[in-house]
């Protein structure tokens, strides 16, 4: 079973995201900021990470830079999932090593399609 880490300071978003990701047959862990996310990655490197941008302690952008410098840190697929919907943010995220970008609000169809595009979910999983 693939492993997904959700890094978001909103408990509500973490709960909604968890429900969607678990319904796609992923094992899920949560972290409430970037620093907690890095600790979770040290314990076990996820297959895919859903990452918020604005968070206290360590934001998503810093988390991603840190992650990509870690041993094995290039392995997880990282999907930004944020209300920062401006093209300039998307470009910054991709430059920093994000694999995909979801603009909130989102739904299960969008997440499923992104996971399929990244190859962490089979294309046969119906939308």
């Amino acid at each position, binding site marked *: 079973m693939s492993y997904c880490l959700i890094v978001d300071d909103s408990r509500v978003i973490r709960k909604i995201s968890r429900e969607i990701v678990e319904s796609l047959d992923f094992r899920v862990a949560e972290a409430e900021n970037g620093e907690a996310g890095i600790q979770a990655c040290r314990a076990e490197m996820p297959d895919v990470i859903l990452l918020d941008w604005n968070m206290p302690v360590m934001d998503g952008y810093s988390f991603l830079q840190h992650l990509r410098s870690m041993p094995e840190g290039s392995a997880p697929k990282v999907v930004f999932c944020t209300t920062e*919907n401006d093209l300039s943010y998307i470009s910054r995220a*991709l430059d920093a090593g994000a694999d995909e970008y979801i*603009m909130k609000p989102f739904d299960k169809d969008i997440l499923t*399609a992104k996971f399929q*595009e990244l190859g962490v979910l089979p294309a046969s999983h119906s939308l």
Partner: protein
Amino acid sequence: MTEAEFEALRVFLKARSGLALSPDKRYLVESRLSAVCTRFKLDSLSHLIREIRTGRSIALEKATIEAMTTNETFFFRDKTPFDLFQDVLLPKYLKERAASRRLRIWCAAASSGQEPYSLAMLLKEASARMPGWHIDIVATDISTEVLEKAKAGIYNQFEVQRGLPIRLLVKYFAQTGEQWQISPEIRSMVDFRYLNLLDDFSRLGQFDIVYCRNVLIYFDAALKADVLRRIANTMAADGSLLLGASETVLGVTDALALDPAHRGLYAKTAPANVTKLFAVGSR
């Protein structure tokens, strides 16, 4: 709406669009046509059906057909048909059309344009391998409303996120507030035209690749066979057809045969052509 009125609507939709409305879809009529009633200032579905039966309002007939046909689509829908295009069909035709350097693609029932634009982006990405090639993408639909949306190439945030890789969004779209417009360069690659699948296809010319996905499911068996036969007639001898994941030609027509190596991909049935497709297409 009485049984007789529902039956009259069924007959009208079948005759004018091919849509086979089964009795269990009665709820759809009410949910989809109430907005048409409001728009045309009709006080009930019964009134709408009476007006249609008079044949006086072409605009009302068109709005009714458009409301009852399903336009849901998204970029790179189902993924596999686009992987097939990149990995199987494009290499095949780059080789087999090397002399003419011409490729013609038809997206039948293209709706709001995501399917032809997905192909146009893939072709743009492959353009370095295709210098001097002339590509035609013809995209047709029965709904003038969705064709106008398709031509404008403007999509909301949900639409650009359903299946479109973010790198292609950044590369080929311009952001205007919460809307995203596909670039003029990609838009210019697609020729959108009105076409009812009940009508003659011959003026469209001949195609190498035809996408006709998730539309035949709304037709009855006889009409499916007729449309597939006429699609086969538009295809080059070594042309390829892609149907939706839940659609098949099996038991419907002998004019086309499934490529056993690739689900959803069909070729004309002449034995030489099938063998050729399978030989080139197999991974």
